[in-house]
């Protein structure tokens, strides 16, 4: 297999554009040591408010809902009221176990 490695690499080298080998090596080193930033779509940039807006739009596009809360402690109440308002049981697993 080692000779396969040598033969494959030799064939590739033969067909790469002729020129200064040092330039080719430098180009690879440059790219790996200092990875360039490629294009990031506009919707993935911007400040937090913009990104929350994009997230909300995309979540709603797939049938989800989004509610923004000021405090992490408000999460349980928000979840409970969401479940109540959409007629969903709070936690079927717990209800079942308790009723045993």
């Amino acid at each position, binding site marked *: 297999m080692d000779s*396969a490695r040598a033969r494959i690499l030799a064939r*590739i080298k033969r067909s790469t554009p002729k020129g200064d080998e040092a330039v080719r090596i430098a180009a*690879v080193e440059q790219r790996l040591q200092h990875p360039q930033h*490629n294009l990031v779509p506009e919707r993935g940039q911007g400040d937090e408010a913009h990104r929350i807006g994009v997230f909300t739009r995309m979540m709603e596009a797939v049938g989800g809902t989004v509610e923004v809360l000021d405090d992490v402690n408000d999460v349980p109440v928000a979840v409970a009221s969401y479940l109540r308002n959409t007629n969903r049981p709070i936690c079927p697993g717990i209800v079942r176990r308790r009723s045993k």
Partner: protein
Amino acid sequence: MEQQASEFPANVKRAIADSQLQWAMTETGPRFIEKRAKARANLPEFDALRDQARDIKDHVLSHLDLYLERYEAKVVQSGGQVHWAETTQEARAAIISICKRLDAKLATKGKSMISEEIGLNHALEQAGITPVETDLGEYLIQIRGEAPSHIIAPAVHLSRDQIEADFRKAHTHLDPNRDLTEIPTLVEEARQVLRQKYLDADVGITGANFLIAETGTSIIVTNEGNGDLTQTLPRAHIVIASIEKIVPTLEDATTILRVLARSATGQDFANYTTFSTGPRRPEDPDGPNEYHVVILDNGRSNVLGTEFQDMLRCIRCGACLNHCPVYQAVGGHAYGWVYPGPIGSVVTPALIGIEKARHLPNASTFCGRCEEVCPMRIPLPRLLRHWREQEFEKHLTPGAVRWGLSVWAFFAKRPKLYQFGTRIAARLLNLMGGRKGKLASLPLAQGWTQYRDMPVPQGRTFQAMWKERKRG
């Protein structure tokens, strides 16, 4: 896998007469097109990303030896091993020798076109190792003993009824009276059957969408999560990938990922995009004890530096198949080998020889849709034309076609005579068409008139009108 690319004309006849296949193609084809168009419309930067994706791969291809060496060093550094294979035989041997050393009896497999290319399943079976495909589409064609008919949707040619019948035949241990009329029940059954295989497997074999030189990482992109279970649960993870799967950095991989799923399925991103770097480390909660990468050449290095080099930018998204009127009419099996559609018609002659695959580059109307949608901007029609030139130069083209071409060339090289000839022919056809303006049969064009009438040329020739307008 047995090559039947030379049987293309006969395969096409069969495919056109296959009403079930025709139904499946009309059902699914337009959906892929719509979804891609929507995904593209939702991302204003899509075309700019295509340019970057093309440039990344072009850069890689002109530095491929250096990136491969760097990738190998990084894999070794993270505790993995790299095996180089010049040919399909060497790739199979490398994988089987790892399996034998581990005394493996069962190998789960993620979807991999390279595994199809090297005929891995058959070789594993011969060596006493049972391969189990875990991608649902691949699993279906495995139990049917078929080849994939699409790069990303291997079982796109099958109907729900066929799948139900196949499951009943293959899963004889389950209740024969179970209800399999709904797609979710079929999926659930496949999940049940496969779940135990993941746990029992000794080795997990996957392909790779990308190999990252910067980190020695392989990436797989799936929609079912089967690849993750295949590569994390068994004792060893074997990746099989071809040399051109290299990208320089994580950043470059993410750029190409932005165009991959959008072009393939119209998703912004596939459901699972999984990065694997080396085997399990002591602090990892799970993962394989061994991590191997088999890097396959199989003729690709011969393509570098030639007029066909651009084909090596392909990321196997399948968009060119979805948009190809020929593929949509005949399906993937007609192409007779692993890679169907426009990219298959370019890649197959490079891998198995134009002598065996000479029909494929002719299976194109040159409508150009494949090039239009290719996320990697591969000039597919130009590459197909190069193969047609080679076919002609190697005298593989049949005598009648060569004769026809030489007659046409004689006129085409003499513009005055050509214009005169087309004027006469147009008038003659017009007369023959009579009041109906159509011809039900025409000498030398029965292939056309067998299925539809030929409308006769109307009015004057394009060149005559062009001349007149220029004057006016």
